């Protein structure tokens, strides 16, 4: 069902009803999620997380030649300050030579604005952003305060759009509106679907030959949907194996110039690498433009790369060709991995990240590297997760913890489990490191994790880290964590609350 007629799409809370507070066995999680009860769980002790604003604006700001306006008090976009140089590098890596990195404004709402409203400031900021930077798109990120006081950012956009060259795209990413930051992806895709997909100028008429060529090309073109946490080398690797199947690839949405979005309709299939990011987008592309999609898994580890490739191959009826490619790649990969395997045998690993990546990466560590996964944390869990956790079903000895960060639970778990290795998301890694556990970040803007070469790259980095863990050991010896000793005697999931106010 399409939500594009709405100003604001439904939040994940309502649309997918995920869970972000759970601790226990995988099978209980999978079954519990199906009953719909888990989505009301919360915590009586909670630690801070991000909100959908940062994720939304991260995605929007990656788009070159765009400006992002945080409509709110001055702090809402402050996380951008840590990324001053990084954004530019990432944009340049994708061939945007004149990239300037992230450009953002804050409407800097003051106490007076809380009373009188901030729409005028937003107008002023939009005009100035357009004048100063001449961007193709101006994204407006709405925040808690204007949402509460009733600023109507859609009206502002509508009434001044014809006086502004850039496309103004309002994004309803107010922090308090959802308990699941992944709603951010729906919000940005909603903006993209509503504002960037139609050609303002009519397309030039094609000759018959040109039309034929266009149709032929479209038949074997896929939209590859990337995510902000992917690196350019990840993209290159996936494009490599899709090209090997004779497919042409257009990459969206991160780091893609705003003007290029109109071509998302010129594909036979949309390929997602993460259901958490893309289900909203691909469903709407299918409904509005008739483009089917595959969405089941993330191509991390040979099992999931195989699943991903075969889903795509089956659509194009080239399963045989895909199986041949998979066989060739896996043979090459296994030969390369062979010398590393003795080091990894019996190493006990703990994985913590987004739902889809967590399942796939855990599977990769066991099946490709011969490690033993002793615990898994996922930021949230919804029905899309079942398929990536398939190989862990029935393994009751592996605790599954669903939490957006909440390091206090992680610290308790790790004290008990004592892993040899921790692979985690930014901001979580350090809390394992502070317990003396060596860490590999589970994604990064410069490294390859996806595809076949990604498996090898993760392996050689793990080898390097295991070879000298002095830094982490010393950190563990010299850090005092903020928890009372009594906490470690309690069940790690003591503060998860099943009923009452979800928090």
């Amino acid at each position, binding site marked *: 069902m399409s939500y594009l007629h709405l100003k604001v799409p439904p939040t994940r809370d309502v649309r997918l009803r995920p869970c972000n507070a759970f601790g226990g066995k995988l099978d209980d999680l999978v079954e519990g999620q199906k009953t719909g009860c888990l989505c009301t769980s919360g915590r009586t002790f909670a630690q801070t997380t991000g*909100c959908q604003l940062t994720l939304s604006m991260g995605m929007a700001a990656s788009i070159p030649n765009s400006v992002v306006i945080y409509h709110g008090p001055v702090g809402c976009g402050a996380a951008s300050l840590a990324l001053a140089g990084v954004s530019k590098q990432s944009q340049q890596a994708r061939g945007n030579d004149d990239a300037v990195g992230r450009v953002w404004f804050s409407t800097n709402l003051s106490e007076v604005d809380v009373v009188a409203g901030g729409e005028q400031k937003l107008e002023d900021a939009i005009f100035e952003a357009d004048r100063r930077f001449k961007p193709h798109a101006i994204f407006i990120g709405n925040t808690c305060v204007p949402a509460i006081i009733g600023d109507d950012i859609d009206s502002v956009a509508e009434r001044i759009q014809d006086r502004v060259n850039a496309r103004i795209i309002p994004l309803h990413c107010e922090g308090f509106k959802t308990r699941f930051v992944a709603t951010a992806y729906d919000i940005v895709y909603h903006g993209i679907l509503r504002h960037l997909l139609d050609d303002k100028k009519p397309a030039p008429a094609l000759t018959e030959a040109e039309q034929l060529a266009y149709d032929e090309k479209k038949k074997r073109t896929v939209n590859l949907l990337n995510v902000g946490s992917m690196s350019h080398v990840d993209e290159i690797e996936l494009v490599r194996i899709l090209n090997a199947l004779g497919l042409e690839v257009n990459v969206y949405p991160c780091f893609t110039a705003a003007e290029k979005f109109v071509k998302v309709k010129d594909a036979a299939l949309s390929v997602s690498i993460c259901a958490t990011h893309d289900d909203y987008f691909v469903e709407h592309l299918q409904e509005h433009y008739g483009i089917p999609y595959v969405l089941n898994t993330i191509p991390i580890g040979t099992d999931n790369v195989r699943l991903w490739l075969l889903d795509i191959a089956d659509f194009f009826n080239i399963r045989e060709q895909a199986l041949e490619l998979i066989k060739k790649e896996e043979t090459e990969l296994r030969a390369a991995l062979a010398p590393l395997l003795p080091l990894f045998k019996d190493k006990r690993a703990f994985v913590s990240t987004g739902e889809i990546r967590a399942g796939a990466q855990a599977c990769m560590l066991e099946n490709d590297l011969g490690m033993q996964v002793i615990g898994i944390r996922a930021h949230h869990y919804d029905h899309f997760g079942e398929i990536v956790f398939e190989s862990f079903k029935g393994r009751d000895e592996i605790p599954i913890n669903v939490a957006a960060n909440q390091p206090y639970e992680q610290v308790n778990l790790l004290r008990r489990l004592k892993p040899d290795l921790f692979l985690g998301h930014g901001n979580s890694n350090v809390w394992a490191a502070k317990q003396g556990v060596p860490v590999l970040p589970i994604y990064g803007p410069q490294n390859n994790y996806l595809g076949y070469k990604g498996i090898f790259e993760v392996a050689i980095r793990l080898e390097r880290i295991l070879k000298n863990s002095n830094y982490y050991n010393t950190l563990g010896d010299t850090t005092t964590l903020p928890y009372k000793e009594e906490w470690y005697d309690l069940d790690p999931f003591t503060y998860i609350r099943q009923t009452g106010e979800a928090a």
Partner: protein
Amino acid sequence: MSSFIEKPRFACPLGGALATVGALPRVVPILHSSQGCGGNSNGAIMGAAGHLGSGYCGGASVPASGISEQQIVFGGITRLEEQLQSTTEIIDADLFVVITGCTAEIIGDDVPAVVRAYNADRNSRAPLIHATAAGFKGNSYFGYDSVLQSLFRDYVVPAEKKKKHHVNLWGAPPAFDVFWEGNLLELRRILEGIGLTVNSFFTNRDSLPVIRNSAEAELNIVVSPVNGVPAAEVFKEVHGVDHFITDLPIGAKATETFVREVAQRLDLCKKQVETFLEAENKRYYHFFNRISDSYCDLDLQRYTVIVADTTYAVALTRFAVKELGWLPTLVAITDPIEDDKKPPFLDLFEGILDNPKATVVYETDASQVSKHLFKRWPQSDGGKYSRPFSPSFVIGSRLDKDFADSIKAGHLSVAYPISNRFVLNRAYAGYTGALHLVEDIFSVLVANR
């Protein structure tokens, strides 16, 4: 009327408060705000502050009530009380600070009442104070000040009797002065060198018992014309301790002036002060003058553009002019001012700049700094006898690097935000700090040799 800002060089009060509480010894913040405020502030106070880490209980560990739609509609007190209870069960701290953000303050939760009730019945639990930090009340410097005010009003105990030669020192806000800890430690060292006992709140040498008794001080020293100044007024009002507002001293000349002013205020023994200053000067010039050969042979004087907050703008300009012998063509102060108000603090540049009114400008927006420069020094047309803005150097924040590159000037990140350097205990203030600053600036000048 505050205006929109392009790339604001600060966080909101909540971000400032978080960084400030995080720098206090064994003090843990509890956020009462929307769920994302802590996570979003972390980028600003960690990655953009010289890669300052999460510390004891920062980063993803900050306890938070996580106000969501439910609380906005029905009120957040129940959630806060629950969070207070659970936090005190599981977190080991000597003081907790509830920091309220936008949503908590808009929905009107009566947090002071909750705090009062908690403290009245706290038993063995650590004490609790409240710092107001709604995002629309100002910026991160406001948050720093707010935490100080709460400490002074609600945690520091009254002291009728003052202790001679005891002073409190503040004005360098944690994270937003990226070199705050090194700066405070160096200034402590100097004040101790003239016989004072110092409480500086936010360094590894500070402790809560001393902070609690800081009303025994004879004098409060605030090393910034703006940061922590309202809090100094509160300290005077509540505890009767006078304050001395001054600039952040960088370099031998400014530090000597600073020391003499403090000595005069406190009526210190002249001999001890002079002996100390003589030794410090000797040591300082022993190292500082070492740059002389290369300074001469490579002609390392520069035209400079300084882009910083008020405190660093004044301090760096003075150091650049008086000690480096450099020529500031433009000083851009990045703090916001009201459009219709006269630019404040121009008088602080008297005696340093020939024409402060012409050289100093207030500009919050990163991309606009270049236009202020070109107004003062028109871009060269490349003609045979044209005068390019060269040789030049930009002392600013990380955000000013693109501007520096565009005018082919050297660049060093000194002012916040700094994401392209790690800062641990490095000082830029005082004597030792200035030597570091010289090393860092001049290293850029010879980076390609």
